[in-house]
Structures are given as structure tokens and as C-alpha cells.
């Protein structure tokens, strides 16, 4: 039995459709926790009971029962994320992507739909080690960023940028999958396996047809943006404010407008190259 670990959320997976089971295990494979011993609550994906009974259960409790065959998988991915956030509050959790260069990580905080997954995919393709596309987990004691190498979620808007990452899906599975590519990060490039110190923070947003530019970001404004992206601020306000202030204090702070992904990746990697040790 494989146990998966989404940060501190450990779980097992069962699915009553063999091909879908294999597909989901491939998506979740970067989260496999081979060292964990002991039982973990299980997700059960049920798609073969007949129309109107497509279901996701967690620890025996129904998460969703739907007539929509894609609903269980969509809810599975969402539930794993949400429970990871709820279960991992010993760390500071930011709504941010992240990738690691040899000398330190670049933290990529941004609002929803700002292009975190697209940008981190672009950086991973250029050799940066993938840490996360959605949740950056920082240890308050060390200020190191911990990997959360979940599959990268690419919305339809990004599909034309990465046509070669289109998943090869058995036609039988198409009804069960939501309209979002889940790309295992090892398909793209290296995946970070150890915590990494943060070297740079790049607050970013995608703007269609904008001129791509990377500029210095005033550190206190950078801190403000990190606090806006902080999932754990409500419960650990003082801890997180002090941690993020120190993180900003020791990092290069930048703001990126992404009009063209290749140019944006060139600029970010160039900025990392300018940091001693990166």
C-alpha cells in the first residue's frame, strides 16, 4: 500500500476503476512517502457504481456524490490541497510557486490565476528544481522552503504554451478527468527533494500582450505581498510576520510582469545568476 504525503497530510488511495487508479497514482507519485509506516486515512474514488453515483470518500466519509463523472477526481485534488494546508500549520504556508537554483530558491507568490504554474513550469524546463506550483511551505525554525512536489496543474490557457506536456490519457478516462492537465513534475525537469534556503522573491502576474519586465521590488512592499499570500497568518500571525520579515531581509525582492514566458524565465534566471551563490 502506497502512502502519499502532501506536506503533513498523509493518505492512501483506492479507486474502483483500474485504469483510473493507475492514472491517479501516476499523478500523485511525487508525493509517495516510502518511509511512512502505519495506517493513513484513505481516499476512495468510486466511478463504476452507475450513473449519478460518482463519489469521493475520505476516511469513509463522503466528500462528494455526483452525477458528474469528473467531480470525484476534481474534488480529490482540491481536498488533498486543502487538507495539506489544514494539517501543516506548523509551517508557514504561502500561496506561491517555488523552484530551486543551485544556490537557493526563488519564491513566486501571486494571486489566483496570475500564472504561478505556468511560470514555474517554464523555470523547471530550464533546469531549476521544482518545489511547488501552489503551496510554498517554510519551516519557521530554519526559514527553509520544503518541497511540495505535487503534479503541476495547467489550465487550458497554458496548454498552447506547453503542447508537449499534454497528458496521454486512455480515452476511457476522459469522462472522469476535469479540464485541467495534471503534469507530474518529473516529466518536466528536476524535482527538489530537500529543503532549500530562499534567495529571491519574485512577485508576479501574467498580463496578456504586456511587455515582460522584471524590476526591483521595495522590500516592505514585498513583505506586504507575502502576507497577502499567507495561508497560516490567521493562526500564527506573529510567527509569520517575523519569519517573512526576516525572509525578505535576506532575499532579493523583485516584481515580474509576464507578457512572454520565455523572456520572463530568462529574466528570472538572470536575476538568480546575479545573486552570489546562485
Amino acid at each position: 500500500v502506497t502512502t502519499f504525503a502532501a506536506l503533513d497530510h498523509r493518505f492512501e488511495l483506492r479507486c474502483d476503476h483500474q485504469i483510473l487508479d493507475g492514472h491517479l497514482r501516476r499523478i500523485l507519485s511525487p508525493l509517495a512517502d516510502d518511509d511512512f509506516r502505519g495506517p493513513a486515512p484513505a481516499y476512495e474514488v468510486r466511478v463504476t457504481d452507475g450513473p449519478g453515483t460518482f463519489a469521493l470518500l475520505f476516511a469513509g466519509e463522503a466528500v462528494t456524490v455526483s452525477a458528474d463523472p469528473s467531480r470525484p477526481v476534481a474534488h480529490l485534488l482540491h481536498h488533498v490541497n486543502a487538507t495539506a494546508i489544514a494539517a501543516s500549520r506548523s509551517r508557514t504556508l504561502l500561496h506561491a510557486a517555488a523552484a530551486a537554483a543551485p544556490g537557493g530558491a526563488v519564491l513566486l507568490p501571486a494571486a489566483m490565476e496570475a500564472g504561478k504554474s505556468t511560470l514555474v513550469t517554464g523555470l523547471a524546463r530550464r533546469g531549476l528544481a521544482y518545489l511547488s506550483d501552489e503551496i510554498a511551505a517554510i519551516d519557521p525554525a530554519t526559514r527553509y522552503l520544503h518541497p511540495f512536489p505535487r503534479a503541476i496543474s495547467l489550465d487550458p490557457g497554458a496548454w498552447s504554451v506547453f503542447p508537449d506536456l499534454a497528458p496521454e490519457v486512455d480515452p476511457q478516462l476522459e469522462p472522469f478527468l476535469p479540464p485541467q492537465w495534471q503534469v507530474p513534475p518529473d516529466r518536466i525537469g528536476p524535482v527538489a527533494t530537500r529543503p532549500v534556503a530562499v534567495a529571491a522573491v519574485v512577485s508576479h502576474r501574467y498580463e496578456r500582450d504586456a511587455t515582460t519586465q522584471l524590476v526591483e521590488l521595495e522590500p516592505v512592499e514585498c513583505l506586504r505581498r507575502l502576507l497577502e499570500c499567507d495561508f497560516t497568518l490567521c493562526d500564527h500571525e506573529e510567527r509569520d510576520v517575523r519569519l517573512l520579515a526576516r525572509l525578505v531581509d535576506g532575499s532579493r525582492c523583485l516584481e515580474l510582469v509576464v507578457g512572454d514566458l520565455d523572456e520572463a524565465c530568462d529574466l528570472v534566471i538572470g536575476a538568480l545568476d546575479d545573486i552570489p551563490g546562485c
Partner: protein
Amino acid sequence: MDEVDQAKGTASDGPGASSSSRFPSVRTNQRVRRAPRILQVEVRGDVVLYDPSDRSLHRLRPDAAAVWELLDGTTSTQELAREVAAAADLPEQRALEHLQHVIDALEVADLVARAESMT
């Protein structure tokens, strides 16, 4: 993010005690303390205040940061002005005016609270 500094301070023309007709807004008998809820951090050498009530950040310029450190709620503005004047080799009245300017700005940002007046 607000920046609290001397330039943003606005002298009040309220009924507070004035020690000089030249500086009618200066209240020498007040005691002001840092609001207890405020978190103070340092970013690249700047003192930055975080207000949990609205999650705002306020960067203090060095002169305002120096005043902020003095606001313990137990010392009157007049006594603080005396300390500042001695330390900075300033006329006491000028130090008092400077203090009041910064305190006004901190009050506008709701970062300090009045302790009781020294009557």
C-alpha cells in the same frame, strides 16, 4: 503600506496644552505609548510596524523610529523632548515640536495610544 515620518505628521490645533505661542499644537504633558497590539520588525535596517487590526504595514523613517522607541507611556512628551534635545544637541523647543510631529503621525495611523495626562 504607509510610511510614517516627520513630513506626514500634522500638528493638531486642538485644546491640548501649549508651551509656546510659536508652537501652539505642542502638548507637553501627554504620555504616549506604543499600541500593545503592534508588532515591530526590521526590514533592511528600517523599523516596520505591523498592525494586526487591519494587517497594514508602516515603515518608519529613522527619525520616527527613534521617537517610536521612546514612547513607553511613562515619560511625558516634555521629558522626552529634554532627552532628545540633550542627545541631539537641539533646542528643547525644537525637539518638542519634532516629537509632536511624529506622535501626531503615529496617532493618525493608530499606532500609539495616549496614556493619562500628567495633570
